[in-house]
């Protein structure tokens, strides 16, 4: 565009630059060189946000893809492969790890092989309590062995006979509890039964027990109520009233170390725990004799020490006779129990008693002859054990040794299966590749999330998210809307202008602070209302309520905007027809603003689902994997149970020492993708509602 010059007078600048004042001015020659560069730069700035979304989607997708295509490895016992001849085409190898499907493919060394048969050879040990084990499993013939910390009762024996089960008793050891005091405590080393009762129940001062003892408070440190030690002690001394032990609020702990430390540092402390634990700390503590009997091997063996009890295993005779693996296991148990029992913390059975037991075993099985030598890798089957939690660690220890001795899961494989992976000269195997990997179907249908055992079902996490979000919504929607209606319809201008910033402050407080609030205020509040035993320390309800409080301002401010957008004329028309304020608000203004309010609700839901810190702090750290069971027990009280959410899980896993090359790392991205998709869809729905149903006035 050329503008003809009117012939202006020559200026100094013109003269200096040698410019002709009469020449036409070309507007295009104004300095515009950067104009389009600037435009593209600014476009790039804007496009960065698109790149961000793209980045999020790509990262989540690619990591999720890795997650779903990742295969895990499980180690196997290599000796059996070593033993196999190089030209065998069918091998038997022992394997550890989870069950394998027949027809899946394993990799041994560099080879891929077809699984022909998988024998789990498991020893399954449950802690059900002695009586529970007899009543619910052993006498019904469901388990082969029952752990027992007392002899079988007549009633139980009758029940067994009813079902054709003949229980064989083997005593494997003795358990004892030591009552201990501080090493500086020289006075209270010999107590009578009555005095022990006094010390652990009613006496406040040592002088209450015996007048010549110091008038110092008795400081009690005892195992927690859930432990077998507690039960046994309470049963022995307080048969009628086991809670007498807790009458004066003793310090309880499940951690023997802590008990020991407390007694060691408190001159007037007293407590009790397993005898083995005392023996390891005998230098720092004094053991108390009861009725003049000191706990040691002799007094425990001849049962003169009050706090001792025998430990048994009961074996189903039929299983013993018919199944090699049970016979081998019991024999192994009796042979080896004395070697390990002291490690576990109990007193060994005299060798001759065990020999006698073994003799009776061989009488039964081999009719008096020696028991046949068994190669453990040749016997197969699953052994089921239930019963006392006191004997449990012992049986578990023996079972582990039994596995180490060769009773391992076994695998029969055929080599040369997959042409893609040509067989090379066979060598020692160190790994079994499980054909298992997380599938999309499993991801959405499995109801257990437990990466350690390769269970990846997102349902428990989604449940955690849902339950907190629902509670949050129950709090935030009515209160947020109520607050919005108050602010928009009822509040005088000056009140409103004070309240709005306050709500903004509420909205601006970091969520980690709300998390702190949930844990230190809301949870104790709920616990004091509903009771300590109902409300767990970490629970969905507390987290949900606080998330609700967090989003009240969001709901109220968006809803208020929608309400205020309704023209005054509508209200005036309503008043003109004789409606009062409440009717106008609920029947005229609210419906007119409905689309905006619904949009606010949806944004609020999406916010509640994506909220992380409150749930990470207050909702618990572990997915609720047995939802059905917990719901069955507690009903709606399930809201007081801890249940980790998707966001909480991501935060917890990535906050720890996360190895970047692990399936855990990949799995959080799969959760993230699910979360992203859910919130993204909710946000889009809310925008569509706003755009489509907006009432324009």
């Amino acid at each position, binding site marked *: 565009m050329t503008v003809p010059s009117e012939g202006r007078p020559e200026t100094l600048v013109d003269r200096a630059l040698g410019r002709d004042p009469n020449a036409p001015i070309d507007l295009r020659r*104004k300095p515009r060189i950067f104009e389009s560069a600037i435009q593209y730069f600014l476009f790039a700035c804007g496009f960065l946000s698109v790149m961000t979304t793209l980045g*999020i989607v790509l990262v989540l997708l690619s990591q999720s893809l890795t997650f779903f295509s990742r295969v895990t490895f499980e180690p196997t016992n290599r000796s059996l492969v070593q033993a196999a001849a190089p030209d065998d085409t069918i091998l038997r190898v022992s394997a550890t790890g989870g069950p394998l499907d027949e027809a899946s493919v394993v990799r041994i060394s560099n080879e891929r092989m077809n699984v022909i048969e998988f024998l789990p050879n498991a020893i399954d040990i449950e802690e059900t309590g002695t009586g529970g084990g007899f009543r619910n499993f052993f006498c019904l013939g469901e388990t082969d062995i029952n752990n027992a910390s007392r002899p079988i009762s007549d009633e139980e024996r009758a029940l067994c006979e009813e079902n054709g089960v003949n229980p064989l008793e083997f005593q494997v050891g003795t358990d004892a509890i030591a009552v201990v005091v501080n090493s500086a405590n020289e006075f209270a080393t010999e107590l009578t039964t009555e005095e022990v009762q006094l010390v652990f129940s009613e006496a406040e001062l040592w002088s209450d027990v015996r007048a010549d003892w110091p008038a110092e408070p008795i400081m009690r440190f005892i195992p927690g109520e859930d432990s077998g030690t507690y039960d046994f002690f309470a049963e022995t001394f307080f048969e009628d009233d086991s809670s007498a032990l807790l009458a004066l609020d003793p310090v309880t702990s499940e951690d023997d170390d802590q008990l020991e430390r407390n007694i060691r540092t408190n001159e007037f402390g007293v407590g009790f725990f397993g005898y083995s634990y005392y023996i390891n700390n005998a230098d720092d503590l004094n053991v108390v004799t009861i009725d003049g009997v000191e706990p040691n091997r002799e007094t425990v063996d001849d049962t003169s020490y009050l706090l001792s009890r025998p430990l048994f295993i009961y074996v189903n005779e039929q299983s013993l006779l018919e199944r090699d693996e049970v016979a081998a296991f019991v024999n192994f148990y009796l042979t080896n129990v004395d070697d390990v029992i002291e490690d576990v913390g109990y007193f060994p059975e005299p060798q001759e008693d065990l020999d006698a037991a073994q003799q009776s075993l061989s009488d039964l099985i081999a009719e008096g002859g020696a028991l046949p030598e068994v190669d453990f890798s040749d016997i197969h089957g699953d052994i089921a054990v239930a019963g006392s939690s006191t004997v449990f660690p012992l049986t578990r220890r023996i079972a582990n040794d039994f596995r180490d001795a060769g009773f391992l899961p076994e695998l029969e494989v055929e080599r040369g299966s997959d042409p893609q992976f040509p067989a090379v000269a066979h060598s*020692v195997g*160190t790994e079994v590749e499980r054909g298992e990997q997380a599938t999309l179907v499993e991801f959405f249908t499995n109801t257990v999330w437990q990466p350690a055992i390769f269970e990846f079902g997102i349902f428990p996490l989604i449940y955690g998210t849902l339950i907190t979000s629902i509670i949050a919504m129950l709090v935030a929607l009515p209160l947020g809307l109520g607050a919005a209606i108050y602010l928009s319809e009822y509040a005088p201008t000056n009140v409103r202008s004070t309240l709005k910033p306050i709500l903004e402050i509420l909205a601006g407080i*970091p969520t980690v602070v709300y998390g702190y609030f949930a844990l230190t205020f809301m949870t104790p509040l709920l616990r004091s209302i509903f009771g300590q035993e109902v409300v767990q320390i970490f629970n969905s309800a507390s987290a949900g309520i606080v998330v609700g409080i967090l989003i009240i301002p969001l709901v109220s401010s968006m809803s208020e905007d929608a309400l205020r957008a309704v023209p005054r004329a509508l209200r005036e028309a309503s008043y003109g027809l004789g409606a009062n304020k409440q009717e106008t608000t609920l029947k005229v203004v609210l419906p007119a603003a409905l689309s905006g309010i619904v949009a606010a609700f949806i944004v609020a839901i999406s916010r509640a689902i994506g909220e992380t810190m409150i749930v990470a702090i207050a909702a618990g750290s572990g997915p609720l994997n047995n939802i059905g069971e917990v719901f069955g027990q507690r009903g709606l009280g399930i809201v007081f149970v801890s249940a980790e959410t998707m966001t909480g899980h991501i935060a917890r896993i990535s906050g720890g020492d996360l190895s970047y090359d692990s399936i855990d790392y990949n799995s959080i991205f799969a959760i993230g993708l699910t979360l992203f998709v859910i919130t993204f869809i909710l946000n889009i729905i809310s925008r569509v509602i706003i755009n489509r149903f907006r009432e324009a006035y």
Partner: protein
Amino acid sequence: MSENKDKNTLYMPSDEEFKQGLARRHQRGNIWRAFYYFSIGVAIVTLITLFVSIINDAFGAIATVESIPPEQLVEDGRSLAELSNEELAAILQENVPNRLLVIVRENLSRVDPTLFTTSTLMQVIPNGTYPDGTAELTINQIRELDNSVEIWTQLLSDNLAQPSLRQLVEREVVELQVVESWSLFDSIFNWSSIQAERDEDFPEADLVRFQSWLDADFLVTPMSSTPAEAGIRTAILGTLFTMIIVVIFVLPVGVGAAIYLEEYATGNIFDVFAVRVRQALDTNPALRWLPGWIKWIINSFANLNGLIETNVRNLAGVPSIIYGMLGLAIFVRGLFLPFTSGLFVGYNVSEPTDQRIVNIINDVMDEADLQLDAEGAFAGPGEESVLTAAQAEGLYAEFERLGTPSLTNQGNLSHDALLGRILQRLAPDASNAERNGLRDDLEENIVTVLGEDIEQVEFSEVLTEIDAVSEPIEEDVTALTGLTTAQVISLTTGLERINTFNINGRTILAAALTLGLLILPIIIINSQEALRAVPFAIREGSYGLGATRWQTIYKNVLPSAVPGILTGTILALSRAIGETAPVIVVGASTFLLTDPDSPFSQFTVLPIQIYNWTARPQDQFRNIAAAAIIVLLIMMLTLNAVAIFLRNRYSTQN
């Protein structure tokens, strides 16, 4: 209303009915109004409860226990503050002789803890004062000396300031422990019962006194594992540092994007393109058959401006933890790692010291049955195992190269590559084909014997089975390198060891970029609002005077919009300050003692500290969490106050 059968006649309630109905309506109205008041009341009460419970925890009485009271340490009745360095160090030496080395490491050492014992004193404490003749000795060597305890003591007394020494004495010897703490309310209203409780539960506790968990010390001391000594210095510095980088990164980009969307997008080349595409889809017979939803997708992606606009709004609704995962995948470990870790600008890239190389080589040489000669070059005891000069020089260079982080060497080289490099240096004269062939043979042997993938193999494990590995190829190896296979593998373990360093992506920069992306949409939206509020007449006036578009924006629009943009930015920043989830995912340290000193330092921020302390079971951590929350809230409220001030000023001006 049952009488109202005829719809054409107007129903009029009787007086009686009307009065009843009115009363009922009023009553209902009151109930609803009560609910509205209740709603707003809950919000306000919660806010008050929140603040009160935090303050309640941040102050209150404490009962403390001292292992050794300071009076017992000093005989003549002086306080610890009056003692000299030597006296304080002597107290340490007397009471905790076995902790001295740890104290030196934690308080004086400037080297990485893993290198501590093999470094010389001069490296450990640069520019320090050393006891005679010890400067050149390594920590391990000094440890062997008889008077090592005296040396540590002297080091501490010479190189630490009196206040630090006093703190050390207090921490290591006096060991003041808070055994119980009470809340502010209890402390004010139940002081006597606190005393009684203390007498009963903690008879050994020395005193009950009032403690403000939030005090000057709390702000300036770094982290500690004992709550009474912990502070938030590193966290505050980390937060400030992060926020500064966030602003530098996000302000130009956010405002730029807003300017683009508001000032350029309408009618520009992308807009025209979008219109063309839409027209083509609607009118072009070749494309008309496409189903509606495909057309919709094509349209939305062709309309870049609309895409940006929609995207910005959707991004604002993405949960913050998702940003954390993005940051983790691209800033902490992925594409941007060289940038966020500082490798790009040569940060933290230091060559390994000669001493370290020699140490490592010494170690592996022993294993490989080789020796270093007096000049530090490689040599072996037997004829066959002597390295040639070329081999030795090459190896040394390789150790130096692989020990130095760089863009091409980010540590953790694959086993394949390590073997390749070793062979290249050991057989400098052989052809590539020969070397590669040997490497492949070696790897195949290892894989066959150990039954694992070459990258999964531990070289140390190879050494235990070396006979089986080397049998078929021993001759080839010796022919090419002059060494045994065992020696080659040993050298490779050394190379692997020096190549194991951590390129740290968990830096302030990574966190700042992540938080930046998080608040970018908020800043864009706020800036757009601010730009939109500038009257159009200003632009028209500027155009009318002949200004170009950019001149108009830069000289006229932006200055009017600046207050609004600033307000929006500050509000967005106050969001970023309190964000915790993404920072956790990106990998903030929960326990950090050193101040951040560059964008590439490890970091922690205030919310992380609060989270970490809240999650701990001991009560005292709750107390300091509350104190830290107060600091965080004060920072945020200050920012908000500035924003509100700006907004008010701005709105009165218009």
